[in-house]
């Protein structure tokens, strides 16, 4: 049984189909990549899994249980955490407070929340910045804060939304390392990424969306050689 399963997920906005009958499953322990040209519906898909949108059709199952009609905070409670493409730090709070706030989900007391927060910050390499107001952080560290916050909720599945966009090469390598470390902790990862290098080097399997539909699924090798995928990306480049 997959950890996360999407069955025939469609999402309509007015007359526009942002997602059309998308189905796939993510297995426990894998790093599963979600790629596709801009506007393919990747973030919309995250919003559906995360609970911000209700699917117009289809179901989302987590550990075999239907979650499509639950609210985002309930879905987080069940074990799915997410980061946002445009990072959302709790700006006027310090780095530490940001993570304490999310640690309260699992902690029974403030002291316990602080413990979880400290441990998570050390894991993410942000411990030294813990008392800085999060709005003063540079982009790379903000992205790591997103990850730290999500981890503090002790998820089984982490939805990473374009965590590597806008980073320089060394920040990029750091990010890849962190993603691998997160998987080693036992967290399954579903990641949206535009950086081909990142996706191809860390994903176990990949699914490709184009215009809201799934056009391919397989290992990175298989995807890289898939003519449909190539056309989707090149076609995009050609018309640009």
């Amino acid at each position, binding site marked *: 049984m997959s950890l996360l399963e999407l069955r025939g997920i469609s999402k309509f906005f*007015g*007359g526009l189909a942002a997602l059309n009958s998308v189905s796939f499953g993510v297995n426990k322990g894998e790093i599963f990549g979600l790629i596709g040209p801009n506007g393919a519906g990747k973030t919309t898909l995250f919003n559906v899994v995360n609970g911000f949108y209700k699917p117009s059709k289809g179901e989302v199952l987590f550990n075999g249980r239907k979650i499509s009609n639950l609210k985002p905070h309930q879905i987080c409670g069940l074990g799915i955490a997410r980061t946002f493409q445009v990072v959302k730090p709790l700006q006027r709070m310090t780095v530490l407070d940001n993570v304490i706030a999310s640690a309260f989900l699992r902690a029974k007391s403030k002291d316990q929340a602080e413990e979880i927060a400290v441990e998570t910050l050390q894991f993410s390499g942000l411990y030294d910045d813990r008392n800085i107001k999060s709005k003063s952080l540079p982009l790379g560290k903000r992205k790591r804060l997103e990850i730290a916050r999500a981890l503090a909720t002790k998820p089984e599945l982490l939805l990473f939304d374009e965590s590597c966009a806008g980073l320089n090469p060394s920040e990029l390598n750091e990010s890849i390392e962190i993603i691998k470390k997160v998987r080693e902790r036992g967290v399954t990862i579903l990641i949206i990424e535009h950086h081909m290098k990142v996706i191809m080097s860390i994903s176990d399997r990949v699914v490709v969306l184009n215009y809201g539909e799934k056009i391919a699924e397989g290992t990175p090798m298989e995807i890289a050689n898939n003519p449909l995928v190539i056309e989707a990306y090149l076609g995009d480049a050609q018309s640009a």
Partner: protein
Amino acid sequence: MSVQIEVFLQTLIAGLLLGGLYALIGLGMTIIMGVMKIINLAHGELMMVAMYIAYWVFVLFHIDPYLSVFISMPLLFFLGVGLQKFLINPVLKVESILPENQVILTVGIGMVLSNLATIFFTSDYRSTPVDYATKAWYLTDYWKAAPFELSLSFSWTVSFIIAVIITVLLWFFLTKTDMGKSIRATAQDLDAALLMGVNVKKMRVITFGIGASLVGAAGSLFIPIYYLYPSLGGQFTLIAFVITILGGLGSTVGAIIGGLILGVFESMTATYLGMGWAPVGRFLIFVAALIFLPGGVASLLRRKRFGK
């Protein structure tokens, strides 16, 4: 039986005439909200200012209130431009914990305006007693065999007609002129407008001016039929909001429909429930619209067009 129909129709007509004027107030606000995403809680006070202008112009120079439209509209335009340039724009740049600064600012502006009016003009009720105030057209004068009597008050009707004319002119301005199109572009997509070379700052200032002048016109059109006192701004601000939300943010067609709906609703409430409950009715529509139809009538129209 025919008495009931008569009462109903009379109430309906009164409501529509009122609604036309209301629409003018709502149009001003929806344009401001649509283009600048600014919530102007001083809208009613702007109308109050216009009404005082019309009043004094009548008392001092014996200019008919309807003609004073030509005076109040430009004056309000400049007042709006001034407020936008010197107070609202600076506030938009300020960073603070509470995001609702701009709303609070307009509350402050409203307080100052209405209090200044109280100081200078006292809170006495004022009106412009024009000689045609009681003139009306009666259905039975034109249709002798009418089953019931209906009357159209002269001043209400003229106000309504002028309101319609102004609305049509506004429509032409927004759809046919370059500046109007720039304003609509700024309302729909700020970044795209910027990219297309629209001077967004200027558009904002002008839009506030236009919004203010529309409500200024409404003021001139209202004074023949309404009492004037400094604190009447509040209820008109509320009316403007109800219409804007009911009609759909930024939608001119929505504001017109919303105005008519509100006018009829209030007329019905006044006839069948009593005057005191009218404000409650307004608030309830407001909250109901915010909750159940946040996109307003405009979103209903849009849904019909896309057939979903």
